[in-house]
């Protein structure tokens, strides 16, 4: 490292002596000052005019163009967004109305059906009641009829039994009276 530093110092010494040979700044030599000033003004004027007249308007135009395009697109997007929101609202109201309608129709039809069922039920019940009444009447009739026929049958049976057991014929009317008496006493038991 120390060696390197030594070499560096020597090199600087050599170099400074080298530069000393061409000492003096060319910048301070006024020989070409006028020429440099003249060409600078000329070249810069050309550059300034071409930039300000041709290129900057073009660049500005394309920048504005892009900005406008972006603005327009954003506006369009907002518009479409609003539209879609409106449509969604419409859809929601339609859906709500439809739901209401469905509920209404359901209720109405339910009521109608209930009424229908009720009326039919009442009608059928009445019919059934009528039938039952009829049947009861018939049964009562039958009962009444059966009592007299039972009395006849039992009188015949009684006279036959008596005849078979005792061998003599009893008076019809006395048997009849006995049967009637028994049946009067016990008819509630059997019928």
């Amino acid at each position, binding site marked *: 490292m120390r060696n*390197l530093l030594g*070499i*560096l110092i020597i*090199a*600087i010494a*050599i*170099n400074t002596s*080298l*530069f000393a040979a*061409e*000492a*003096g*700044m*060319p*910048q*301070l*030599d006024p*020989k*070409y*000052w*006028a*020429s*440099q*000033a*003249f*060409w*600078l*003004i000329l*070249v*810069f004027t*050309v*550059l*300034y005019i*071409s*930039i*300000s007249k*041709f*290129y*900057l308007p*073009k*660049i*500005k*135009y*394309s*920048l504005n*163009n*892009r900005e406008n*395009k972006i603005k327009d697109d954003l506006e369009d997007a907002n518009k479409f967004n609003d539209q879609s929101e409106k449509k969604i609202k419409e859809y929601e109201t339609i859906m709500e109305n439809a739901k209401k309608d469905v509920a209404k129709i359901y209720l109405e039809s339910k009521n109608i059906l209930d009424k229908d069922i009720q009326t039919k039920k009442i009608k059928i019940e009445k019919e059934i009641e009528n039938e039952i009444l009829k049947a009861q009447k018939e049964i009562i009739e039958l009962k009444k009829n059966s009592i007299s026929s039972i009395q006849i049958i039992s009188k015949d049976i009684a006279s036959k039994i008596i005849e078979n057991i005792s061998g003599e014929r009893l008076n019809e009317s006395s048997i009849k009276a006995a049967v009637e008496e028994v049946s009067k006493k016990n008819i509630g038991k059997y019928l």
Partner: protein
Amino acid sequence: MQQFTVYKIGPEIKIAGVDLSFTNASLFMVVSTTIIIAFLYFGSRERKIIPSKIQLITEMLYNFVAKMISDTAGSKAKPYFPFIFSLFLFVLICNMVGMLPYSFTVTSHIIVTLIMALFIFVAVTIIGFVKHGFKYLNIFVPSGVPAVLLPLITVIEIISYLSRPVSLSVRLFANMMAGHTMLKVFGGFVVSLGILGGWLPLSFSVALTGLEILVAFLQAYVFAILTCIYLNDALNLHH
């Protein structure tokens, strides 16, 4: 210092006894301007909604300078936008072209930077007087200064105002010259230390080249932004 010498190219042009010959300095001014114009031509040729790469670069450059002006000098400086845009590009490309080997750095000559700075100084002063009349002299009398200090401050303000062209021109010139001289010195070390010891200065040289490219950009930016600040003083009288 040989890299800074100006020599004649082609015939001698003399107008009214003044030597206005085409020199290597003039050549590199023309080269830089040609590069700028070609770049802007290709950058603004197609005006697409979705820009091509070169179009994007020109538009970024436009926005960069536009932002710089509006940040420092406000909206009143808009008419001077083309001038500052040209100035920035010219200084930047001249600095960058100067970084190429065997080229000539236009901005490393005090006369070139001085003429630009003087033009800016004179123009800004004229703009100030046109916009504000004699009220523009208020720039030398800051408000809120105690009456005792006022004469001193005014003198200092006048000196600082008058030294603006000097500081503006010397800053650019000295930066460019110092950078190139330093690169040359390290280049000389590489040669004199030979293949054994030359690697260290060579690596310095490489690093310095990167630094110089940064400086080339930075000085162009500083030159343009100081112009904006001077313009701001002339346009918006704050005192």
